[in-house]
């Protein structure tokens, strides 16, 4: 079982990832201010090709590498999903190290 402190840390880290991604989206399109659960691709807020830039940015920013299985638009559907995907990847690579 995870300790309360770990859960709080994890929520904090997720919030930080969401902020970084929100800033990246904003750079792409000044009018974009999505809420954490707003659909990014399904809503048409961003073009699906933007996923390539987003994934490239996340890999560069967080030093992670997504596998083909990770590359599913559902994993990048909203700010919250993106943050969960990044954190899971970071945890997996930390565990593997």
């Amino acid at each position, binding site marked *: 079982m995870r300790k309360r402190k770990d859960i709080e840390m994890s929520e904090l880290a997720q919030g930080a990832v969401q902020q970084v991604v929100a800033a990246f989206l904003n750079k792409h399109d000044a009018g974009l201010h999505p809420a954490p659960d707003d659909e990014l691709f399904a809503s048409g807020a961003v073009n699906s090709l933007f996923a390539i*830039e987003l994934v490239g940015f996340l890999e560069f920013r967080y030093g992670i590498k997504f596998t083909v299985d990770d590359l*599913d638009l559902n994993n990048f559907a909203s700010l919250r999903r993106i943050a969960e995907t990044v954190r899971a990847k970071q945890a997996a690579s930390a565990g593997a190290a």
Partner: protein
Amino acid sequence: MADAPWTGAMDVSPAAEERADEVSVEETPDAFGPVGVVGAGEIGLGVAADLALNGFRVVLVDNDSARLAAAATNLVKVIRFAPMLRPGFPTGPASAVAAVTATADPAELASCRFVVENVTERWQAKREAHRALDAVLPEDAVVAVNTSSIPISELASETVRAEHVIGMHFMNPPYLTSAVEVMRPAAASERTLGRVETLARLLRKKTIVVGDFPGFVSNRISHLFLNEAARVVAEHGVPPKIVDQVFRDCFGHRMGPLQTADLIGLDTVVDTLDRLREATGDPRFESCELLRSMVGEGRLGRKSTSGFYTYE
């Protein structure tokens, strides 16, 4: 333009429905045989990726050793994202990468009865590539010229296979687009058009047949607004994302013109405008100073680190 004149008016081909019964319905990528892809630049790699993901074996040829060396890595990059952006490919990414053989030797195309030529948008380069193909291809092999501005009839007349040469304009990235613009010159045979239609169907694409005139339908029109969008940035200081936002949000376009220019590659945009300027004699196609200076600085768009936008 002395070395690449456009001849005559539009060649209107008969409607696809009239030939539907001549097309083999059950043909598979295996039966179709390996497809040659000449040119491992941005669009050539995209075409190779699309073919491989759809179950074709591909022979990818480029005479530039640096580009060929980078092809394997770049191909993985392209193929990696395809299933995410367009689910449902019959071939997985690893098998797709393995289905592509990259080589500097055009002789390896001898087994291909269909070739997509993606050489840079310059007349001399295209002509040399087609002469090299004549030396190695089976007599009845179909050669599809992937171009946005080179006259197909003139290129075909430089070859020994004019009836097997046709234009096929793939949009970037090919795996994501649901149609291909087909330019049929007067000399191209029914069989040639039939092979193109079969290939397109196996790539899950529609064909839209247009005439063989400068810029065809797509670029004759699109490059005017790509150029004009760059002028709006240069002359009025409008940020690129604002220009693009108007096209996306007001017109409902999937992408704005400057995003599109970055995706095509600004060098290719300038080359295409040059070809259109030469072919039509129309100063509207004169590429604007901003585009030229960005190309001079190596800011080519998505394939480099920056264009109208920055890429990490």
